[in-house]
């Protein structure tokens, strides 16, 4: 069935992009590029959820809401209870630090965003936030990779 094959190809592309974005987010963090590290970390999670969702439904879902995409992707179906608890903590970390609007933010604007959401006030909190969101995205991405062939 050509359509089914194409659907799987596109889902696979989303998965590959998620892996690439996750690695790039790590590189950006290590290089001190914290705004784009934030943005790509969240985007990596979005792509992984889109990969799972596309296998169920190829109609594009324009939402960038990660919790809504998690539900639409039926990601919970592949996770054990313990894995689900791990993903819950990681996804909370990503959701509270990420916005698709980050791609339009300067480092100063991101700093203000984090301040307004009480996620940092003093010290190198932008760097710490970047470390936390990148690590959380890796946790979710690893679960996505682990169960991709399930």
């Amino acid at each position, binding site marked *: 069935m050509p359509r089914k094959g194409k659907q799987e190809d596109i889902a696979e592309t989303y998965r590959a992009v998620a892996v690439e974005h996750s690695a790039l987010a790590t590189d950006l963090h290590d290089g001190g590029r914290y705004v784009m590290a934030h943005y790509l970390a969240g985007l990596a999670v979005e792509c992984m959820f889109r990969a799972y969702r596309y296998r169920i439904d190829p109609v594009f879902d*324009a939402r960038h809401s990660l919790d809504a995409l998690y539900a639409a992707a039926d990601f919970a179906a592949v996770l054990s209870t313990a894995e689900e608890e791990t993903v*819950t903590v990681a996804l*909370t970390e990503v959701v509270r630090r990420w916005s698709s609007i980050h791609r339009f933010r300067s480092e100063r604007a991101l700093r203000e965003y984090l301040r307004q959401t009480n996620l940092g006030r003093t010290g190198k909190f932008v760097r710490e936030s970047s470390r936390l969101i990148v690590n959380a995205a890796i946790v979710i991405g690893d679960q996505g990779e682990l169960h991709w062939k399930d």
Partner: protein
Amino acid sequence: MERLKKELEEWLLQQFPGAEVSLEPVRRDIKISGILAWKGFDGQEPIDRQLILRRKLREHFRQEDQRRISIIITLSPAEYAAHREPQLA
């Protein structure tokens, strides 16, 4: 499912006074996921928030119902407000 969703929503509002709760079915109506935004989560790490929530869930709900409660994202009111900002396409 509708019974559990209603019970969970009412219980969360009772346990976390002043909270905002948004629940939706996942896994083709087998499980429930959602967001719990509460001022008491401000300044707390996600792991600590989940420990509080999961302990309370274990104390109140039967194991069968606990297994049907999937991810509940725990946010502070400020985080929830930012999360609900319009996201550009």
